[in-house]
């Protein structure tokens, strides 16, 4: 009952936000373009941005939004797309299915031309059908559960490597460090659970045994009994499939509980905050990571521009977000129109070389070439690992 009320309140707040938008005070949430937040303007291309800017994943959502802003500013400075300027309109999905649907309704009501965003897979899945029904193109920058493309909605493209690519990367990593018994831990959320399942299917194909699969409650404090179960299963490698706040807890308690094998975490935990949160326990932890900007080709210029604009370091999904806008730009220019069908076909056939790697889509609208890299925490900083 308690949680429900909290959700109800969140919905009420979202409704209030919509009301305040309708009243015309939503100017703070649109940016990057000519400055005026008006959506009825024929001259501008309005891009809806759906990312979490509140809740546990707010850090990533904000990071992505800032990256979109950078790309939009660059494009507008260079003359825009088809001679028209880009404008962003942001809505918070709170990494929560309920809030995500209100966010989608907000964007649809503002007549956005395209939608980008999507960090949490669960929230993204909840909103996708709404966009599809409105025949809106959705470019998903970060969320990457294979559950997204399995819905078969042909206006939704996933620009991040799906979890199945991460499973292959993990198998390579296990082989290179000589591990043969892997324990998987997830927290029951859409993406972590999906990733865990994909690893369960993939690893045995490479001769790697799954020692045990464990689940921890989201936000749970004590996982020591899970640690004991993992030690008892004699796993020599632990893979955390969830997000970084809970992940740091898991890593610390694994080390406290006397686990001595290797630890890796999934892309949901790929954040510099993981290093701070883990402290000494984080040393040596591997991350199957999305294309981290500082290891990307041409990343230095991007980091410098990002810092100049926001006075912040870009995070793990900044490159993907940045590329998303450029993919959209190229597709619109190829299509020569804003018509969803034409732009959709252009996206389907795109071959774009961006910061995050080569963006090319399979017929299922997933990324064709894996963009996963392996990084490791060494002396309190991330280092690229080549295997």
């Amino acid at each position, binding site marked *: *009952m*308690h*949680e429900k*009320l*909290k959700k109800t*309140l969140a919905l009420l707040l979202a409704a209030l936000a919509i009301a305040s938008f309708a009243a015309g005070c939503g100017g703070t949430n649109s940016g990057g373009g000519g400055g005026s937040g008006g959506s009825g303007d024929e001259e501008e291309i309005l891009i809806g941005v759906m990312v979490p800017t*509140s*809740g*546990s994943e*707010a*850090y990533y959502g904000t990071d992505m939004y800032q990256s979109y802003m950078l790309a939009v500013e660059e494009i507008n400075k260079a003359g825009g797309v088809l001679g028209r300027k880009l404008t962003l309109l942001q809505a918070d999905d709170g990494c929560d299915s309920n809030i995500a649907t209100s966010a989608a309704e907000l964007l649809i009501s503002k007549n956005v031309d395209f939608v980008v965003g999507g960090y949490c897979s669960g929230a993204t899945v909840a909103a996708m059908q709404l966009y599809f029904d409105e025949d809106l193109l959705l470019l998903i920058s970060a969320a990457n559960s294979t559950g997204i493309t399995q819905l078969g909605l042909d206006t939704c493209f996933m620009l991040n490597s799906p979890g199945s690519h991460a499973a292959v990367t993990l198998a390579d990593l296990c082989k290179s460090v000589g591990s043969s018994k892997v324990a998987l831990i997830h927290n*029951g959320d859409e993406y972590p659970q999906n990733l865990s399942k994909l690893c369960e299917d993939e690893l045995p194909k490479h001769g790697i045994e799954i020692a*045990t*699969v*464990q*689940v*921890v*409650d989201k*936000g*749970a*404090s*004590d996982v*020591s*009994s*899970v*640690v*004991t*179960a993992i*030690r*008892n299963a*004699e796993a020599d490698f632990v893979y955390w499939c969830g997000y970084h*706040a809970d992940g*740091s*807890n898991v890593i*610390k*308690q694994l*080390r*406290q*509980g*006397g686990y001595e094998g290797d630890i890796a975490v999934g892309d949901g935990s790929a954040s510099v*905050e993981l290093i*701070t*949160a883990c*402290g*000494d*326990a984080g040393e040596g932890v591997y991350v199957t990571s999305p294309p981290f900007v500082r290891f990307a080709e041409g990343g230095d210029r991007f980091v410098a521009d990002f810092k100049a604009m926001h006075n912040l370091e870009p995070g793990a999904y900044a490159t993907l977000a940045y590329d998303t806008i450029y993919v959209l730009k190229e597709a619109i220019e190829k299509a020569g129109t804003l018509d969803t069908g034409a732009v959709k076909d252009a996206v389907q056939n795109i071959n774009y070389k961006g910061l995050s790697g080569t963006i090319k889509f399979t017929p299922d609208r997933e990324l064709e070439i894996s963009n996963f890299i392996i990084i490791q925490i060494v002396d309190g900083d991330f280092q690229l690992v080549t295997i």
Partner: protein
Amino acid sequence: MFTFWEIVLQQFINGLVLGSFYALVALGYSMVYGIIKLLNFAHGDIYMAGAFTCLSVYSLISGYMPGWLGISLAMLAAILASAILGYIAQRVAYRPLLSAPRLSLLISAIGVSLVIYNAVMVMTNSKAMFFPGGINKSTGISYGHVTITYMQISLLAAAFAAMAALTVFISRTKLGKAMRAIAIDTDACYLMGINVNAVISFTFMLGSGLAAVAGGMYCVYYGNVQYSMGYLVGIKAFTSSVIGGIGSIPGAMLGGLLLGLLEAFGTQMLGSSWKDVFAFSLLILILAFKPNGLLGKPEVARM
């Protein structure tokens, strides 16, 4: 790797540590219920506020003094802050409703919970905060494959000391006697000249202070705090106090420890995805046979 008994012992330790958190928070639920028959749903959030105070104060002062002193002071600040918060909540949201139906009081409690939850969410920008490093948590005693860290030992010691002090306080002091008297018959207490409102305020502060002890221990032990951390613990602590017999002080402790142990052994026997099913099935069974909880007394209708 582990022998059977090593596993049992290790999971027993794990469950005991987890259970002592539940027990400390459950005490607050139980005391308040015992006195004014209110399910104080804001209690989990007061625990969260305590953890945040502890972490913020420690981050501020840790550079100027040795670690143990910093932690003690931070803990003290957390207890004070939570006690004050508990008092304010009681004064503003509960006291005006004391004569209203209990359901109104319950709604008021949910309101307080939402206020604290969202206030901390806004103040922290909904980000997790992390405990500055420097405390070595991984050293401890090993016996075979079983390990118990010094941190765990001190947590258990602190929790049991707090619970023992509370028991002595309630059974030996005048104020404790007044609390028990109000629990039995509030109206009679008014007639006997007991300052009921003051005692109720004090009960809230005491319960909130204990929750802050748990919150402070949490932030030292686990090293991170989030605005949403109170929810799960609140629900588990509420469950604990019902199992132990809501209103009963030793019952809350017993219920908390029992729930922690059940979760640990549930994880071991059925896997972590089934641990709650395991724990709660057993709890339903207990309630089926002892509807008033393990140590609860059957409600006697007063004439």
